[in-house]
């Protein structure tokens, strides 16, 4: 190697590392594509719908796509999350209505939660809907999630009609489910 080549090579390597860093930061940023589409009234297909995740009760695996044909409320929660506790009664009320008319269900997705504590949380709030464990946070990332709780409401075709990045209210959930039921 010629003496003058060393600084040039070092410069190229440094530039490559900076480019890699910029690219890494760009692709690791929060993906707001889903939020933008839903806010514009579009109904995008739920990302990560085919991801099979283990059920919290240990009875196998399930995915969002398994619920195609019914209204599905996907709720990301954790037992250590305060707002999740606050919205738990809202979710169970909605689940009771969906069970009563047979139009759909809620699917809980636990996030970085110890299963023993998740199960205790379910019992505490009398959840009758299933939950899955997103151990590798793959679904969480696919949905562009930024925290817990988060809720997505899907119509029978698996399209997202409403989403909330944060705690939900009865009003939000009732309206979103009505929109999902009316969606054709």
């Amino acid at each position, binding site marked *: *190697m010629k*003496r003058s080549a*060393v600084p040039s090579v070092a410069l190229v*390597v440094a530039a490559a*590392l900076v480019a*890699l860093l910029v*690219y*890494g930061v760009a*692709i*690791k940023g929060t993906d707001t594509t889903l939020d933008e589409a839903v806010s514009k009234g579009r109904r995008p297909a739920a990302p990560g719908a085919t991801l099979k995740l283990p059920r919290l009760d240990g009875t196998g695996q399930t995915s969002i796509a398994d619920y195609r044909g019914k209204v599905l409320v996907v709720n990301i929660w*954790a037992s*250590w999350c305060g707002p999740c506790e606050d919205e738990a009664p809202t979710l169970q009320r909605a689940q009771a209505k969906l069970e009563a008319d047979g139009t759909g269900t809620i699917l809980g997705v636990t996030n*970085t*939660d*110890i*299963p*023993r*504590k998740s199960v205790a949380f379910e019992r505490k709030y009398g959840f009758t809907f299933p939950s899955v464990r997103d*151990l*590798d*946070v793959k679904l969480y990332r696919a949905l562009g999630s930024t925290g817990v709780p988060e809720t997505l409401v899907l119509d029978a075709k698996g399209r997202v009609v409403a989403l909330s990045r944060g705690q939900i209210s009865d009003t939000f959930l009732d309206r979103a489910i009505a929109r999902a039921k009316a969606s054709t």
Partner: protein
Amino acid sequence: MRRLRPVLALLAALWLAAPTTSALAAAPRASFNDIEDEVMCVTCNVPLHIAVSAQADEERTEIKRLIAQGLTKQQVLDQLVADLGPRVLGDPPSDGFNVTTWLVPVGAIGGVALLLVLTLPRWRRRSEDDHDGRGPSTDEPSVSPADMRRLDEDLAATEG
């Protein structure tokens, strides 16, 4: 014989307990500090031993609970991975762009090693030349003839 019964019972109990005690002594005891150093607070994304949050405290409680059950360090780590996912070990995932977290350090070490292999012999040669009294390379004059002539003139004028 009747008096000996309690003594015999005690000896039998000790004899039965002996293998259990030795087995426990042989198994490596898990240390909380040792495990806390090696895992992440999965909700705060920082090493657990520096994490300050309610979730981190829950994770610590869980580790202590598993240690109290008599699990070894590896068993505790395995249980944490089963409960909280592989992120709890702090190893970056090896898929997609994340593979760069492994490749860049390896590439950097390789690059530095290559640079040293290429430049060290030249540095050594130069150093040896200096020690031989030959001094640094004199292929090119450091002072031009014109400057040399001007220097001579200046020196002559100073001496004169």
